[in-house]
């Protein structure tokens, strides 16, 4: 042990004791040198931030210039429900103060600005980027910028709608080693970008691919076509969404029944976030980012889908690249 870099301090050893027993000292050291950026501070991302700040990452940058509203705080345990405190401050500013307090060993800061305007130079300093509540266009462009960086920037996007959640992971070319029966084996994974992943022809996917995956694509596309703000949909949109579903399914030679009405209806109707699902998705996402930074454990490739209705948390590999 103690091969790379300096040793952990006594304080770090004491606070991180229980998790060092899970992933080891080297992984902890790598975590403490990592830099992470998040944008879109709703419930799931808040849960994620809490998890990685507690785990002891090096730094965390928060981006969300929205002013606090009651709806934005529905699943936010970081911000006190006191108007005197919250007035006039952005969501990122408020969360930042609170997260600093969680773990003084982590540097937490606010990065103002529109996510769409951050450039490659900005992203290349980072180890992981997590975005949420943004348009499809922005999602694709941030992912592309991360891919242009000379060193790998792990990219994640996450969305929760009603009691469903989806995580997308892009680790580009990712190699890691794991122990199997006392032997160390080298593993290589190749990830597609978000743009390439969602372009994978639906008919080429296995029959049993999660229905939630398709439903999310329909709604995402609907928001794009209608030029809506992210997640600005409602039950009233159902007729038009069903129309879009028909078009998409026909164009992609897939039976419409793969995307049940009821599922679309649920995804559209959700007004507020659902804290238990935020905790579950934020937990899985936190674990994935820790895996990618520490190089310990099998990272998921490349979608994770959870629906509280059936309780399944499913991994789908949506890519043309076969490993």
């Amino acid at each position, binding site marked *: *042990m*103690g091969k790379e870099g300096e*040793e952990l301090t006594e304080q770090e*050893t*004491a*606070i*991180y*004791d*229980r*998790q*060092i*027993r*899970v*992933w080891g*000292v080297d992984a902890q050291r790598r975590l403490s040198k990592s830099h992470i950026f998040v944008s879109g501070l709703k419930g799931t991302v808040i*849960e994620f931030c*809490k*998890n990685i700040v*507690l*785990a*002891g990452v090096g730094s965390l940058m928060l981006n969300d210039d929205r002013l606090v509203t009651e709806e934005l705080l*529905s*699943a*936010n*345990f*970081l*911000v*006190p*429900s006191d108007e005197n405190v919250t007035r006039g401050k952005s969501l990122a500013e408020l969360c930042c103060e609170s997260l600093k307090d*969680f*773990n*003084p060993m982590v540097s937490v800061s606010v990065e103002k600005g529109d996510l769409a305007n951050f450039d490659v130079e900005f992203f290349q300093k980072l180890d992981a980027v997590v975005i949420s509540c943004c348009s499809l266009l922005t999602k694709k462009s941030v992912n592309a910028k991360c891919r242009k960086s000379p060193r790998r920037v792990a990219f994640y996007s996450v969305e929760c709608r009603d*009691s469903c959640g989806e995580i997308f992971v892009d680790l580009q070319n990712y190699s890691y080693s794991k122990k199997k029966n006392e032997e160390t084996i080298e593993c290589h994974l190749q990830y597609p970008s978000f743009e390439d992943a969602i372009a994978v022809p639906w008919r080429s996917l296995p029959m049993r691919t999660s229905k939630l995956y398709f439903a999310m694509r329909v709604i995402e596309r609907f928001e794009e076509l209608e030029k809506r703000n992210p997640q600005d949909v409602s039950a009233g949109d159902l007729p038009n969404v069903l129309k879009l579903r028909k078009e998409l399914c026909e164009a992609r030679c897939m039976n419409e029944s793969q995307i049940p009405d009821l599922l679309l209806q649920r995804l559209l109707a959700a007004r*507020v*976030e*659902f*804290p*238990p*699902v*935020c*905790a*579950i998705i*934020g*937990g*899985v996402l*936190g*674990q994935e980012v*820790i895996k990618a930074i520490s190089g310990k*454990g*099998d990272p*998921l490739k490349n979608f*994770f889908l*959870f629906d*509280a209705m*059936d*309780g*399944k*948390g*499913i*991994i789908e590999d949506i890519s043309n690249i076969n490993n």
Partner: protein
Amino acid sequence: MDTIEVSNLNRQFLFRQKHVGQSKAKVAREAVLKFKPHIKITPYHANVKDPEFNVDFFKQFNVVLNGLDNLDARRHVNRLCLASGVPLVESGTTGFLGQVTVHVKGKTECYECQPKPAPKTYPVCTITSTPTKFVHCIVWAKDLLFAKLFGNKNQENDLNVRSTDASSSSEHTEDVFEHRVDEDVEQYGRRIFDHVFGYNIEVALRNEETWKNRNKPRPVYTRDALPPRPIEQNGNKDKASNTGDPSSVSAMASLGLKNPQDLWSLRENSEVFLEALGLFFLKREKEIGQLGFDKDDQLAVEFVTSAANIRATSFGIPLHSLFEAKGIAGNIVHAVATTNAIIAGLIVLEAMKVLQNDVKSYRMTYCLEHPSRKMLLMPVEPFEPNKSCYVCSETPLTLEINTHRSKLRDFVEKIVKAKLGMSLPLIMHGVALLYEVGDDLEEDEVANYAANLDKVLSELPSPVTGGTILTVEDLQQELKCSINIKHREEFDEEKEPDGMVLSGWTPALATEKNKTSDNGPSSSNASQTVPLEPEDDDEIEIILKDPEILSAGKKRKSTDISVAADSEISSVTGAMLIKSKVEADDSHSDVMVDGNLDTNKKKRVQ
């Protein structure tokens, strides 16, 4: 009852460094109120096994959410939930694994319907004579050597090798471990060292039979492990006057060893051993004779680590760092924030189904490290109650016992307490009361029961023999069961160490093992890593009360129900009771936070 520790802070996000030492229940309450000011939270900094939390108390709630850290308390709450008819959501995590299960009386299995994995126990001789793994050395160092030197002297202890000629050890050893009045501490330490790592190994080697198919151990003496003793120079005496607080005394500190992750050489281990032993005598002398091993006691961990490593050297077993040894000796559960968050979310989902009485949707959910059939979170339909579960059905038990030799005390300790998990038992033979515990007993009753404890079963005032049916009851748990007694003359000492066999009972992780002093090594619960029955020291117990929903059958929007049960509660350490009262439109709720029942702490091996 639990208080906040530094090692909780990596995942129990309601707590901060400044809260270390405070009540988890109380601090958690304050923290939750900051972001949800309009709910009512009542913290109980108490043990859930306290009599005030009786069946009537439980009956106020609509659901109990358990996240306890020990089997004893889990069984207790399971029984109270059964007795009060309140649904229970159970949960646990260890590392990346976790699970959530739902237990509703008559509808799904209870927490005790399935046998629990047996505790890791080791044959006495493996620990005393033929260790093959590091954990064996840890058990030896902790439960035998440490207990012998610093614990209760009256406790039985198998430290000395059982040699063929019993006379050579017993008498001889009593003075070996005694610290003589004018004896120099360093000298004493070396004498102990040479005795346990040198002489005892040589005695063991004489048992040629033992080593026929095994590698022979190598005796280690101080003269081999350490350079010749320097005159007038030993660490502990020099530093003795500098350290003020006895709890901060550390052999590593006085020897200049910094990194707990480092592997120490035999020499370093030997130095730590002598230094730690010396420091106990010089700085913590008052505690000697009543110390139990505690993973948070730095000096104790140092002593046990070094002793285990020296023993491991003798037996050709790979050495371990203090960090690793501490984990094994303290049975430390691995825990991360992410798994806790996931499990907490799942707990809330199940609790909401329970509140909506959506029985068909109940699921047991497993959080896996590696996906199974693409699933990382795997829901499974709950099982029906096990018809032969003595806790939730009425299955009679059978006990084979030697009624002429076993005393009532053995029956109470080994069966009623350890196996049936009762804490306030009442034992009846027909209408005759044989035994009872309680505060309201008359003096003569107390004397009577005490006398009964020391009688063999067949000589009790109402004799218990083959064919007798005993009724055993715990009034607090409202659990009652019958035991058919079958007389049996002989028992196998190794396979049936209790000298009695209970059948028709689902064996469980008997945490009570530690209380019984039958044999040291088996009392260790080290390395109990059980994948699907994880125990965590982040414990939560949440009870939701929602009379309106159940009586009026109103269905609320799920988002409303999450009141007190947002995931945030998830990572609280400490048992929690939450009751939420929900009116038709506005929701306000009561949350009761109960301190953790860290029974592990009081269950140290003597």
